[in-house]
C-alpha cells in the first residue's frame, strides 16, 4: 500500500491511498463505498469490501481521514497470543471503524489510534481538516513506536508511508517510497489537489511507451485508489484500479 497526506499551498489537507493486496481481481469486484448514517446524516464513510465490516480507509466528515498500511513484524503466533491474552487488544480494522464513529477531533483520533492495544502491528496514516494535521503512526502491538507528523512551516508539507518504517531504507526490490516522493516533489505544494493526488497515485515507471515491471506507486497489486480531504468531505471517492488493463 501507499498512503500520502499533503498540505497544499492554501493549507488544505489531502489524503490519497493505494490499497495493494493479493487476490486483486477478487477484491476489485467486491470493492464498495459505505456511508454510515444515523438519523439520515452521514457520520463517517469508508471504502470496504462486500462482507468486510471493519475499515481500512475512511473519513469522518470535517474532522479527519484514516488509512491503514500493512506492517509485517514478528511471527503469526505473536498476533495469536495478543488476541488470546490481552482482552483489551483490538482488531486493526475494528479500531479504525470505532475511531471514525466515536472520535470527534483529529487529536482524539491520533491518541486512540496510537495507544489502543492491537492484535497486529500496523501503520495508521491520518489527515485532519486543519493546517499541519497529518501524521504517520507506526504501531507495535502494544502502543505507538513513533508518530511522524507533517511540518509545513519547516518544509515537510507531506508525509507518506508504504510498508516500511519511515526511519529505515525500504528494500531495493520494493522501494515505492522513492518514486512517490519524486512524484510529490515534481507536483509541488502549489500543484496539489484531488486530481494531482490521483495522478501521483497512478505513477508508473515508463520508458517511452513501455511500462516497466518494477515496484511502483501504481503496481500489479493495486486494487483501488481513494482520494479524500476531511475539510471537503464531498471530494472522497474511490476508483477500482486495473493496472494491467
Amino acid at each position, binding site marked *: 500500500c501507499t498512503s500520502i497526506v499533503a498540505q497544499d499551498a492554501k493549507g488544505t489537507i489531502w489524503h490519497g491511498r493505494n490499497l495493494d493486496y493479493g487476490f486483486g481481481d477478487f477484491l476489485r469486484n467486491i*470493492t464498495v463505498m459505505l456511508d454510515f448514517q444515523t438519523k439520515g446524516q452521514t457520520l463517517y464513510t469508508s471504502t470496504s469490501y462486500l462482507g468486510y465490516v471493519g475499515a481500512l480507509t475512511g473519513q469522518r466528515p470535517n474532522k479527519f481521514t484514516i488509512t491503514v498500511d500493512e506492517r509485517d513484524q514478528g511471527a503469526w503466533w505473536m*498476533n495469536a497470543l495478543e488476541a488470546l491474552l490481552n482482552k483489551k487488544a483490538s482488531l486493526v480494522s475494528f479500531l479504525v471503524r470505532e475511531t471514525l464513529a466515536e472520535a470527534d477531533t483529529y487529536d482524539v483520533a491520533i491518541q486512540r489510534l496510537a495507544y489502543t492495544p492491537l492484535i497486529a502491528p500496523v501503520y495508521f496514516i491520518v489527515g485532519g481538516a486543519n493546517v499541519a494535521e497529518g501524521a504517520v503512526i507506526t504501531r507495535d502491538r502494544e502502543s505507538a513506536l513513533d508518530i511522524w507528523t507533517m511540518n509545513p512551516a519547516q518544509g515537510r508539507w507531506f508525509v507518506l508511508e508504504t510498508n516500511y518504517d519511515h526511519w529505515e531504507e525500504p528494500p531495493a526490490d520494493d522501494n515505492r517510497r522513492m518514486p512517490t516522493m519524486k512524484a510529490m516533489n515534481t507536483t509541488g505544494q502549489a500543484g496539489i489537489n484531488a486530481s494531482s493526488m490521483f495522478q501521483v497515485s497512478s505513477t508508473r515507471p515508463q520508458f517511452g511507451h513501455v511500462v516497466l515491471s518494477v515496484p511502483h506507486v501504481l503496481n500489479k497489486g493495486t486494487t483501488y485508489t481513494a482520494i479524500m480531504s476531511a475539510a471537503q468531505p464531498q471530494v472522497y471517492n474511490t476508483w477500482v484500479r486495473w493496472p494491467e488493463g
Partner: protein
Amino acid sequence: RDVPVKRYVVNLDAAPEEHFLPMCQDPDILELIPMLKKDAKDMITSLVPEEVLPLVDILTADLDQYLPQPFAGEMRGIANCTGIDLGEIVILNLAYDLTAF
C-alpha cells in the same frame, strides 16, 4: 478502466444484523455471490496459517463473547443474507490481523 465504485448507505439506527442488507439485496451484488463463495475459500486457504484455523472455530462458536457489537451482529447478518459460512466471513474479517507478521 479506472472505475468509480458503488456506494451504499449503512443505517446505524437499524439492528447490526440489518446494516448490510441493502448491499446484499442489490442485484449486482447477488450476481457476485457465487464467485465470492468460491474465491473466499481460495483466499482463506492461501492466507491463513493452518494452525490458526482451530482458534477461528472457537471464536465463531461464541462470536458475541469474543467480538464487540456491532461487528458480531453485522457478520451474522452478512452470513445470513449471502449464504456464506459464518466461519468464512469471520476469517475474512480477521485477515489483516492473521497475516500481518
